[in-house]
């Protein structure tokens, strides 16, 4: 039990911080035995006929036996031995399937709990995102293949379908027909990290503002305005449509600001999608969601109080 718990808690914690999480999570979801191995400082491999894995399977057996059984035994003899051989048959089965199954579980768990974070993380994510994109695309396919067997198994038999099978089938179909509904949120919120350079001593260049604002479907002027208001500075756009900001800023700081921008002006509060647009109606901005159609008003960008910095003016009189 301990190994599982150890396995799970760090994820929960890690979800709070920014990037390493993504990496970790993804890794975990990819290779099952990775974390347990790591933790128990045992054998370093990717997939496994290990004692540890068996242990794990036992733990998850309650949850997963249905699926596992059906996948494994489907091609041969579709149905009935399921309830009987929970613990015994697993060991030989796992070598192949466990990986993917575990993956699924992990992913689901992560999805639910990280739902909110995803949003925030969404904002600005590092390079892994690019790689991850492929990954996330891969996964559903892999599952599908597996799902097919499974389905074939129980469709032809007379036995009652289990909830999990039906659920699986539903998601499979949903994913193939309209993937955007399938809750694969990760890939929707991909926004490249701001690339930040220093120009001279006092200015910061934000090179991919255009790119980022295009991804968010916002005019870059709007994003720029927000940045300046939040950072309390000014700046300009140079010839290569890079943003030059006065003052020194680090990538992380800009990430934070961008994330806030996304929360405020991009994501739909109702359905959390970022396929939205801003509509202006008699001086008020409205955020209109394109996937769920909801509208909400957003406050305009206000600079607020600006302290006077630098040399003081001479008092007149």
């Amino acid at each position: 039990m301990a190994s599982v718990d150890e396995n799970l808690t760090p994820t929960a914690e890690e979800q709070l911080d920014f990037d390493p999480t993504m990496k970790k999570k993804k890794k975990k979801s990819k290779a099952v035995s990775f974390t347990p191995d790591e933790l128990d400082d045992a054998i370093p491999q990717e997939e496994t006929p290990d004692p540890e894995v068996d242990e794990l399977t036992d733990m998850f057996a309650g949850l997963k036996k249905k699926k596992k059984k059906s996948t494994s035994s489907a091609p041969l003899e579709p149905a009935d031995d399921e309830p009987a051989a929970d613990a015994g048959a697993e060991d030989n089965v796992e070598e192949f399937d466990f990986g993917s199954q575990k993956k699924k579980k992990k992913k689901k768990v992560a999805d639910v709990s990280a739902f909110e974070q995803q949003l925030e993380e969404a904002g600005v994510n590092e390079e892994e995102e690019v790689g991850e994109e492929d990954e996330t695309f891969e996964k559903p396919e892999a599952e599908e293949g597996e799902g097919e067997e499974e389905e074939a198994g129980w469709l032809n038999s007379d036995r009652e379908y289990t909830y999990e099978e039906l659920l699986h089938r539903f998601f499979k179909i949903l994913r193939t027909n309209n993937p955007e509904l399938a809750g694969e949120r990760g890939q929707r919120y991909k926004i490249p990290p701001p690339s930040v350079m220093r120009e001279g001593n006092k200015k910061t260049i934000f090179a991919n503002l255009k790119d980022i604002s295009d991804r968010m479907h916002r005019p870059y002027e709007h994003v720029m305005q927000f940045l300046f208001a939040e950072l309390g500075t000014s700046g300009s756009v140079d010839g290569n449509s890079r943003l030059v900001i006065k003052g020194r800023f680090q990538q992380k700081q800009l990430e934070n600001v961008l994330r806030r921008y996304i929360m405020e002006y991009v994501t739909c509060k109702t359905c959390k999608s970022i396929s939205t647009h801003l509509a202006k109606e008699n001086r008020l901005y409205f955020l209109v969601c394109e996937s769920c159609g909801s509208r909400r008003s957003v406050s305009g960008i206000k600079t607020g109080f600006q302290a006077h910095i630098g040399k003081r003016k001479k008092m007149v009189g």
Partner: protein
Amino acid sequence: MSTSIENLKTFDPFADTGDDDISQPTNYIHIRIQQRNGRKTLTTVQGLPVEYDQKRILRALKKDFACNGTIVKDDELGEVIQLQGDQRVKVMEFLSTQLNILKKNIKIHGF
């Protein structure tokens, strides 16, 4: 007539609950940061409720955070407290604990 009967008092479920978006945006407290030269910064606190004595708050803030600060009078925004250094989180803590201002009414800006 119907008003005399208790049950018939109309309850409109769609009426504004009061704590909705409508009342809020006016009284946000904005805490901002500005960069000065070098690694120095300035924190400004804008929109403190008028019933508080800004001077006394400032004095408490200065003492608590061991920094200097002033009150600046702005034409539109009224009195704004300026503090030296990045005191944003501390100011927020102070406001919420000492003055019982809700955290959702405080907005921290800046990086």
